[in-house]
């Protein structure tokens, strides 16, 4: 028993000594260097105040009821109406000069439903933005509150329930160049077999929802958010230039193609465009190829580099209308 006890004690003493030695200097963790987390407080006053400032500024301009008057006057012609709606948001300054004369006209009209002159003018603008994004459903609710007659007229312009694409087309080109494009558009629509190119996802929902927002807070507030209408238009027009519509079709649906392609950051086309959807008609193959050719030929596209995320992958609809 003694031998065991001696060995055991000796072993434990050794163990303790080893522990004393090895645990003596526990290395402190290198936590000290990580302690400082740089936190910078960025004032967003600039952004916010810009935003607010624009809001107020636009509201001031809007009271001059440019929008209502032209629309009423041009009720008969469908094309111009949609075009002018979008214009108000960005161009207020430029658009002002022409409308001022009509001012008297609108003011007398609102009084009929609602006597207070001062208030009605500011009110009408707000409803306008809403109808544009979703003209059918959403527009109906807000309109009744404000001048009843005007809103009713507005929804009509998109009158042709035929194709929702038409209005889009017209809207976009104008935003970049306000007045000049209008004439072009007029020529576009009826005369030419206009190539309607849709970037589907962004245009359908996002681009539209952008615009109502742009009434209050302009695109500049959040540049990285989404492609604006004008930029989409720019892309569309760049592609459109190169698209040779196949000949011989009778129904636009016979040559309507949807294509998806990727873009590099410098705007050049990355890889080969991919045909998402092409008609089963005899022109299907041809039109798909022509669309791909158009995309390939017209690159590199000029698009805002900071929004590359938004246009790194584009889906476009090639469809002649007329």
């Amino acid at each position, binding site marked *: *028993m003694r*031998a*065991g*006890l001696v*060995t*055991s*004690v000796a*072993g*434990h003493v050794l163990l*303790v000594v080893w*522990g*004393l030695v090895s*645990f*003596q*200097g*526990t290395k*402190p963790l290198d936590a000290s260097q990580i302690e400082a987390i740089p936190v910078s407080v960025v004032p967003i006053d600039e952004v916010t105040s810009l935003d607010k400032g624009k809001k107020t500024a636009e509201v001031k301009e809007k009271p001059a009821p440019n929008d209502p008057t032209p629309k009423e006057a041009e009720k008969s012609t469908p094309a111009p109406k949609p075009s002018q709606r979008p214009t108000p948001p960005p161009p207020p300054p430029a658009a002002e000069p022409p409308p001022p004369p009509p001012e008297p006209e609108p003011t007398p009209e609102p009084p009929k439903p609602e006597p207070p002159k001062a208030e009605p003018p500011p009110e009408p603008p707000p409803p306008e933005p809403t109808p544009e994004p979703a003209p059918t459903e959403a527009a109906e609710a807000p309109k009744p509150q404000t001048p009843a007659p005007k809103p009713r007229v507005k929804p009509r312009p998109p009158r042709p329930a035929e194709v929702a694409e038409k209005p889009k087309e017209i809207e976009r080109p104008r935003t970049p160049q306000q007045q000049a494009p209008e004439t072009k558009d007029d020529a576009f629509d009826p005369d030419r077999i206009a190539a309607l190119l849709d970037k589907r996802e962004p245009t359908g929902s996002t681009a539209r929802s952008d615009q109502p927002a742009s009434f209050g807070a302009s695109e500049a507030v959040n540049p990285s958010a989404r492609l604006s209408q004008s930029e989409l238009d720019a892309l569309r027009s760049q592609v459109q230039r190169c698209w040779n519509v196949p000949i011989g079709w009778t129904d636009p649906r016979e040559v309507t193609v949807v294509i998806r392609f990727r873009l590099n950051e410098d705007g050049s086309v990355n890889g080969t465009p991919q045909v998402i959807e092409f008609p089963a008609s005899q022109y299907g193959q041809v039109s798909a190829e022509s669309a791909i050719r158009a995309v390939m030929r017209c690159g590199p596209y000029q698009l805002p580099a900071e929004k590359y995320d938004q246009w790194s992958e584009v889906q476009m609809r090639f469809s002649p209308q007329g």
Partner: protein
Amino acid sequence: MDPVALGQAALDAPAGSLSFMSLFMQAHIVVKLVMIGLIVASVWSWAIIVDKSLLYSRVKRQMDRFEKVFWSGQSLEDLYRSLANRPGSALAAIFVAAMREWKRSFETGARSPIGLQTRIDKVLDVTIARETERLESRLLFLATVGSAGPFIGLFGTVWGIMTSFQAIAASKNTSLAVVAPGIAEALMATALGLLAAIPAVIAYNKLSSASSKIAGRMEGFADEFSAILSRQIDERA
């Protein structure tokens, strides 16, 4: 213990003093006792482990040697005479005990074969039991340490953490520098418990199986020897 003083002690403790010794010295008295107890248990259990391992290997060696001699054809009388005074091994002790009973029975003339056989078996059983007990003594201590060690260590840890929480509450400071030493010293109690228990459990399993093997071997030898003596009794009767 005054929690405020404890907290102050924890605060005063320099951050780098987390060595074994300082951990032990800072610990609460209960934790200290637990640690000391566990260290003692560890020392004792290792002593037992070493002792038993040596004993078993020695016993096995002796048994091998004795069996070799026993089955070598040497006369049992001679063997008995040579071993009578100091039976070196467990088997030799069994052999000597049985032979002594045999001889004593013949010398006194108590020659009833059945009675003699019974007496020899009894003597064999008793000797085996005594030898086995010698082999297995203190093994239970290992089993106890193995099962209770972690609990004792855990008790020390819980106690230490309790007091260190009190220290936190007293110092109203939850920084790691305040909490860490208390927890470290508390965890050391569990570490010691495991340190004592793990070898104890392993050794207990190993040693108990070895001892039962040896006991089985003794039983087998006793049965064989009993059969030999029984034959002798029948021949002489």
